[in-house]
Structure formats: C-alpha cells, structure tokens
C-alpha cells in the first residue's frame, strides 16, 4: 500500500506522515515528493521548519525544477518585515492564493501540496483551527479550479498529544502513516540500509478503515522500497529458524536415548515418590481408624503363658 500511495494510485486526499525523534519521517515525505515530481506534477512545498535549500538536499535536479517553494521559514512572525508567509494568519484562502498564484489561473494539471511541518503550525494555532483551515483549503482549491491531487503533511507525534493524528484523520479523511524503527539489524531484501516500519491507517470515503503494516527503506535518490513480509535479520526477527539450528544431542549414538510414544506415556503415568497425591492423602487420613491389625500365629515350640509374669512382685 505504501508504494501505491507513493505512486499516486490511491484516491486523492490528505496523507499525514507521523514521525518521532527515534525515527524521522522527512525522508519518506521526500520520496513521495520525488514520485509526484517524476509523474510530471507540480509540487508546492510550504516550508515552516527548514529552509528550501535544506529541504532540497539529496533531490535530483529534475525533481527540483518541479518544486515550487513557499517560504514560511525565514520570517514566520514578521519580525524582519520581509513580507513572507505569515504562520499565524495562514488560512485556507492564503494557501489557495499561494498555489493559485503559481498555477496562473484554473489549471487541469494536477499538483501536490506539501506542508513541512504541521507541528510548526500547531505551535501557533489549535488543532481544531488547523483542521478547519485544511478543510477550507481543499474546498476553495476545488472551487478555484485547482487540481490538488494530494496534500502531504509531516507531523512530529512526540510534540503533541496522541489524539492529534486521530483528530486529523477523522475530520479530514486522512491517511495516517506512522513511522517507527524496526528491530535492530533488520533489512529488506536488496537493501543494505536499516528498515523502518510504517503503520498505515486509511479512511476511505465509504467509511471503511483499512489498516496495514509494512516495512520500508529509502535509498539514495529517495527511492522507496517496501515489503509486507516480516524481515529476517541477524537476531532472527521471524524466530522460526532458531530452534532447528541447534544440534540434537541424542543423534549418532551407539545406544538409544530416545523414547517411543508408549514409553513416554507410561513414564508420565508413574507417580513421583514424594509427590503428595490424592491417594496418599486419603491413605493417611484413614490410617487412624484402627484398621491396621497384627496377626500372630504361634509355632509349636512357642511357650504361651497366660499368667502375668509380674504377679510375684511386692512393692
């Protein structure tokens, strides 16, 4: 599903990449940007967290020519009075104005809009306002005749309460891709780089929610490689091969150490010598009732005298 999202085969809408300090998501975002640019789409990148030069590092020249940067990084609060994109007043109308101004009127050519990142916007406006602004942008873009095929956004989950991606997902019908590091040493076939795990939650217009987990890695040139199959690393992530690798000590012996099934069952039936079973307990409980008797059969040579041998004692 990750590759189909990257190639634009899934229905259009908002794709939110949720990352954390342990696993950055900007490289996945840039792989989506690269795919969109190579499809011939114009990509509008709104940078709030880093400069356009830093964002462009690693992108091919052919991709860069299709990127249109809107600078929300240099002067977001108008301290320098440079007339840049104001982060506090950024609304759906402003976003449409920036995109539409470049596209020069209603355009049938699809474009992709990238917001890097939503965490910077959420420092200055509440989540409800941001969700409304994004919804407003999508509606105004459609009204203005702009074909915004996809809206990509990056969010740092460790900077916000956990319900923020859910709110965006429910209100905007977002596809949320949460990236986390996969176990140490795990690799995808054909890649030497460590892989990460993407947990995808896609909300479709029919109301159906699709969940999937995939492993992915980003190669040089922001080429995406993904796989649904679990990985086998040095530590044996799948775990199934480790048991059979161990040597069998009972093999290749001149005597037999193994048991047949019947012998194994018979062995399991044998009570242990000091095991306090129910039978032993019952035996001990009934032992004081006087059932135990001593039977004596005298021989012919035995002299049985009924008299008390202590009668002649006079104390």
């Amino acid at each position, binding site marked *: 599903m990750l590759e189909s999202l990257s190639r634009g085969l899934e229905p259009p809408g908002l794709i939110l990449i949720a990352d954390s300090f342990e696993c950055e998501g900007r490289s996945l975002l840039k792989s989506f940007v690269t795919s969109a640019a190579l499809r011939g789409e114009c990509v509008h990148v709104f940078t709030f967290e880093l400069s356009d030069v830093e964002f462009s590092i690693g992108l091919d020249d052919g991709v860069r020519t299709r990127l249109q940067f809107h600078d929300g990084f240099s002067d977001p609060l108008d301290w320098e009075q440079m007339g840049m994109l104001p982060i506090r007043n950024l609304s759906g109308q402003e976003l449409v104005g920036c995109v539409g101004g470049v596209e020069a009127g209603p355009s049938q050519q699809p474009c992709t809009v990238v917001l890097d990142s939503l965490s910077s916007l959420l420092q200055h406006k509440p989540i409800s306002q941001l969700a409304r602004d994004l919804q407003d942008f999508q509606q105004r873009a459609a009204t203005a005749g702009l074909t915004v095929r996809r809206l990509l956004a990056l969010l740092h989950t460790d900077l916000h309460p956990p319900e923020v991606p859910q709110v965006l997902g429910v209100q905007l019908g977002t596809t949320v891709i949460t990236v986390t590091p996969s176990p140490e040493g795990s690799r995808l076939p054909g890649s030497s780089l460590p892989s990460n795990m993407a947990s995808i939650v896609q909300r479709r217009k029919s109301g159906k929610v699709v969940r999937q987990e995939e492993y992915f890695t980003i190669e040089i040139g*922001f080429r995406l490689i993904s796989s649904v199959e679990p990985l086998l690393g040095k530590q044996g992530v799948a775990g199934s091969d480790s048991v059979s690798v161990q040597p069998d000590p009972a093999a290749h012996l001149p005597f037999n150490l193994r048991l047949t099934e019947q012998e194994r069952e018979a062995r399991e039936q044998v009570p242990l010598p000091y095991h306090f079973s129910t039978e032993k307990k019952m035996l001990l409980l009934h032992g004081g009732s006087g059932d135990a008797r001593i039977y004596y059969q005298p021989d012919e040579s035995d002299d049985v005298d009924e008299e008390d041998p202590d009668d002649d004692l006079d104390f």
Partner: protein
Amino acid sequence: MTEQPCPTAVTSTRGCKVCFLGLVQSFNHYSLVAQKLGVQLSAAREKGQLVFLEGLRSSLDSLLTEQQDSRSPFEFLSSPDTSLNCLYEFVRVSLSETSESTWKFPVLIIDDLSVLLSLGVSAVNILNFMHYCRATICSKFMGNIVMLVHNTEDLEDEENNFVVKSLSHQCHLILQVEGLTTGYCKDIHGQLTMTCRSPSPVKSERNITKIFQYKVQDKNVNFFARGTSSSVL
C-alpha cells in the same frame, strides 16, 4: 547537565565571530574557565571577535534604569508573555557583520535556555526565538548554534520537556550529559551520550548514538569508552 559546556565550545571556534549569551554566570566565571583551556575571552572581546551578553548584570540594569530603552535585549523581563524579538535583534546585529570581516563564520552560544523558562518566558516564545536564530545564523549566515538546555524528564516539567523535544527535532547533534547511575565515582565524573541525528540527508538512516564517559581535570576533560577508565585498566 555539565557545568562548563560553553568554554569548551568557545575553544573550538577559533577564527569565528562568537556571540555568547551568558545568562547564568558572570563574564569573569567564563573567562577563568576558558583561561584554563587556553582561551582568552577578554582579549577576544577587546578585538571584537567575541560579543558577550552578561545576563546577570544587563538584566538588572534593564529592570532598574528608568529610561525607556525599547531595544534592550531584556525587554521581556518587564512584560510578561512578550516575545524575545529584542534578544534576537541583539544576536542578529552582533553577528551580521561577519560577512564583511575576516572572521570565518558566526557562532551563537547560549547558556542556558532553561533559565528563560524560569524567568517567565513561555515555551512558544523560546522556540520562536530559536527558530529565528536558526533561520538567520544557520541558514543565512551558514554559522552554528551551541545551546545548553536542562533535561527535566524525571521532574515532569512539561514546558521544559516540550522545549527540549522540539529543539531535539531541529538539532543535528545532541550531547546529553548525566551523572553515573551508580553514584559518585572518583575517576569517572559522568557519562556523555552523543546522538547524531539522521546523519545522511540523501537517504533514510537511523540516528547514530555513541556513549562515552569522562573525567574533568584541571585544564582538560578526558573522554573514554565505557569500561576503559584509567582506574579499571
């Protein structure tokens, strides 16, 4: 966190124009420590290489003087919930002359950001200030920023933790200094965890984390791998 991070940073900025926001200690303190490491802060300040903002003295002057100096870097002390625009202006003006001079590139050193929270500055205003410093010094002037922030994860200081997490996402290198979990040791004074964030910008790579232990000596700091302290070997 370490007691003396900033003079060590100053020793590695030879030939650079430095703006040092010393908000916690006096200039003499940093000067004495730097002297032990072979750096003369007084001489650097006199020849214009170092611009030092002595927070303890300047903030007091800003509060006690009656004249309305709107360009004071500590204007935020008198008005609650004010932005750090004036402090940023001070930094920008101090380092904007780098391109016209013989210095290599500008460096901003801040000791420390957590004290701004204690002075009533909100976390968002601190992050706005750091954003502008980064935009101007790193992106525009191609310089570096070294800052000290206290880690209060165990103390549940939400504002400080938010500042630390936000800055961690923006930093390229994070040095986390802490004492040993086993307590005091004569030969090992602490542990340094160095995290290089996303080392390659052209493909996805994990953060590289390395752990060292250190011993602070009179004129030097010795770093060594865990288990290789001189008392052990």
